[in-house]
């Protein structure tokens, strides 16, 4: 019997050729190696596997599944039943792409020795809670109801804070006459600069998506 996935919906989405996640043009060991026979020989439900390789790091099935969970919850609440599969497929495709971008970003941040301290995350939580008129525990509880644990919520904040730092240090200097731009133009230019920067990172990094 061939291995069956633990999360049929997610695995089916990942296996779909319509994910639009083109593998790198660089040759890979997996494409070069003879067809694996051990995996075919395995039986049981697949509960973990590599879904993407980014440089020397991997993105795992359960990591993608955990990140997708709150989106799937939202889709279940807000999307008609006959359109859910397509919506979930789109989420997986976008999430995996985002996770690849995050890994590229993280590697660059490490190279530049940029990080986010726990105190910075604490401060962000406090500011967000204050902005919404709630306490930090209430904020975590709201996140939990949307399918994110406290740890996942803080990790999401860490990612955003790091993204902000990279924006200030790398993207802003790339924008001509940044100081003279309107807020809307700054946002647009930052978006363009981010896209170009990510394309540069991707071009020089080994990226392979494994359906």
């Amino acid at each position: 019997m061939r291995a069956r996935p633990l999360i049929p919906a997610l695995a089916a989405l990942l296996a779909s050729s319509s994910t639009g996640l083109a593998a790198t043009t660089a040759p890979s060991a997996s494409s070069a190696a003879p067809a694996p026979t051990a995996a075919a020989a395995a039986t049981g439900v697949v509960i973990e596997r590599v879904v993407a390789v980014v440089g020397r790091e991997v993105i795992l099935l359960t990591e993608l599944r955990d990140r997708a969970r709150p989106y799937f919850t939202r889709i279940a609440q807000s999307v008609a039943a006959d359109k859910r599969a397509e919506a979930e497929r789109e989420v997986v495709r976008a999430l995996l792409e985002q996770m690849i971008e995050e890994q590229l970003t993280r590697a660059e941040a490490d190279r530049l020795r940029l990080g986010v301290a726990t105190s910075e995350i604490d401060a962000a939580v406090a500011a967000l809670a204050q902005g919404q008129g709630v306490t930090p525990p209430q904020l975590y509880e709201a996140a939990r109801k949307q399918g994110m644990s406290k740890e996942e919520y803080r990790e999401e904040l860490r990612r955003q804070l790091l993204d902000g730092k990279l924006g200030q240090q790398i993207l802003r200097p790339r924008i001509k006459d940044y100081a003279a731009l309107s807020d809307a133009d700054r946002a647009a230019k930052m978006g363009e600069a981010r896209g170009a920067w990510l394309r540069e990172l991707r071009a020089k990094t080994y990226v392979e998506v494994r359906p």
Partner: protein
Amino acid sequence: MSARGRLAALGPFVTPSLALLVACGGAATKPIDARPAASSASPALAATPCSTAEGGGPGGVARVELLGHARVPAASYCGALRTRAGQPLDEAEIRRDVRELWASGFVDDVQVTKTPTPAGQVLTFVVRERPRIRALAVRGAEADDAPRVRGLLAQSGDLLDPVGLRAQIAEVRADYERRGHRKVDVDWKITPLAGGEVDVAIEIAPGPKALVSALRVEGVSKAREAELLALVDTGQGKFNAVGAIYREDRLERTLLELNAWYFDHGMIEAQVSLGAATLSPDGAQIALTIAVTEGPVYHLAEVKCRGDLAEGEPRCLELLGVRKGDVFSRAAMLRGIDRVRELQQKKGRGTVITPETTIDQAGHTVKLTLDVSR
């Protein structure tokens, strides 16, 4: 639409954009050891038990096994696993184990399957080992270049490492570029063979060496172009000068130095970049243009010292050496900070010195406060 945009279209979570905020011991394991190499390179198609336990119950792990190993002994892989029979199934531990196996560098793929049995769950770690390079051929390199190129690449007998190979190819390309070649094309092909081996062929088309035909600085009004050109590192005429080869890496360094020059002459908004590097159609000549946006000259509107000062603010300001009305200079400020720090050290006082600057973009002024603390 970007990945973020597509996800954001689902609507806001409790995590809003932080753009505004930003603007403001477990079981002992062993590292995997490939020795002794197995004689057979064919992957194992029958599972090898790593650990077995009785009475784990339906939710517990009754057996952990390995499948697909070939060169590396099963015991080496098994020794790296924290997941053990007799324990509850722990997704986080499995995730860590998969990462551990991946990080070993011996495997190209890992997956974990779970099979329920009356005694508990059977977890199978299925590995696919990286193929070994049987032969690595380099074509297109001149005889003089071949040994150097080979020295940058993997060797026959190494495990195929796609990430490493990519970095090596980039280094080969950079090596040619450092020697003035433009339009360097390096292609490679991997041919799978039986027995878990591959042949790798590297094809190099170096292209001609391009010589600098012109070097200009555009956008200069407050500085003098000749003054800036004098700061260009040419390696005593070996590169980045008219008639010499173009070294992109060295010009990038020069751009940073030019930026620093502007910072030391009050133009803190200045931006220096490579405006253009235009290669002639035959690839033999390259025209370089450095683009500069100078911006206004900033002056110091206020200079203060505060905190754990060894001999009071007047002495701190004297040592700092920059005064109200001066053109802002980062280098002058840093030299002054070194002098203040030296005094602070001598007197056994605080040596953590943080320059705080407040920039008035309308008035083109900078307020500088030196914060000294222990």
